[in-house]
């Protein structure tokens, strides 16, 4: 986590007062942090555009930044929600949801399903192969289910932390996390 220092508060005040160029300090300091969050959630070729969208949203909502939590937490919230919006739009335009497994991926999935070797999963299949199958399953979940599953199951956030990041109720996150895990299970065992 990146600390919110006193000078940062001063920079934020300057930006709110109209010094647009002062935003460059925040951009330089947090670009790696935002790329890390966004890069895991969206396709490689979309990372730059989504990260840009995150910083634009952050700039526009800077007057609403209360300073109660560190700016890194606030940026993480914007980044996660922007990624969720990206998937919502992508599914609406059927850009990703209709994509099907390639022949290789289908073969791989079949091999994984029929795997009786008892060997370590990671020993038998390469990380890239596993990611392809995971990506296939994630692309078949709704934007909300996908986001919750990534946060809670794959990244290890608690339901409370995920609720804070998404701005949802704790009950909603718990229900969605449970349902999305069931969906992932059925997708991987089809």
């Amino acid at each position: 986590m990146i600390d919110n220092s006193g000078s940062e508060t001063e920079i934020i005040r300057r930006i709110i007062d109209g010094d647009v160029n002062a935003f460059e300090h925040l951009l330089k300091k947090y670009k790696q942090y935002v790329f890390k969050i966004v890069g895991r959630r969206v396709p490689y070729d979309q990372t730059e555009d989504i990260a840009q969208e995150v910083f634009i949203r952050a700039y526009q909502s800077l007057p609403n930044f209360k300073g109660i939590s560190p700016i890194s937490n606030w940026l993480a919230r914007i980044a996660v929600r922007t990624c969720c919006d990206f998937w919502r739009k992508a599914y609406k335009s059927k850009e990703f949801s209709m994509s099907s497994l390639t022949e290789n991926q289908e073969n791989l999935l079949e091999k994984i399903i029929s795997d009786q070797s008892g060997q370590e999963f990671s020993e038998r299949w390469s990380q890239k192969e596993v990611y392809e199958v995971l990506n296939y399953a994630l692309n078949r979940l709704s934007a909300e289910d996908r986001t919750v599953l990534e946060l809670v199951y794959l990244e290890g956030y608690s339901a409370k932390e995920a609720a804070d990041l998404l701005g949802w109720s704790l009950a909603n996150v718990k229900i969605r996390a449970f349902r999305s895990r069931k969906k992932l299970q059925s997708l991987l065992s089809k």
Partner: protein
Amino acid sequence: MKPLDDAKLKDALIAAYHGKKTAEPGIYWEIKVMNHIRSLGPLQYDMTGFVWRFAAGACFLVLILSAYVMQTGFHPEYEMTELLLNDSEGLAFLSYFANII
């Protein structure tokens, strides 16, 4: 298929997810973002949140007025006539403007 709670499968999925190759921010990306931010101009205070603070009060007022109107009835033409008849000075004042027009 192994159940999703299987620690081996879970570890493999998590490792694959975290091992995904991610893009790195370049200097041109930074310039592009700053150009976009500059094109947006200086920030202006967002009044939306301030205005929404009055929403609850406004709704409450509407309810009170609706209840009052339901009780007393709504006859604006009688109210206006009564006001003008009981206020002769006001009537003279208004008629002065009516003559000018």
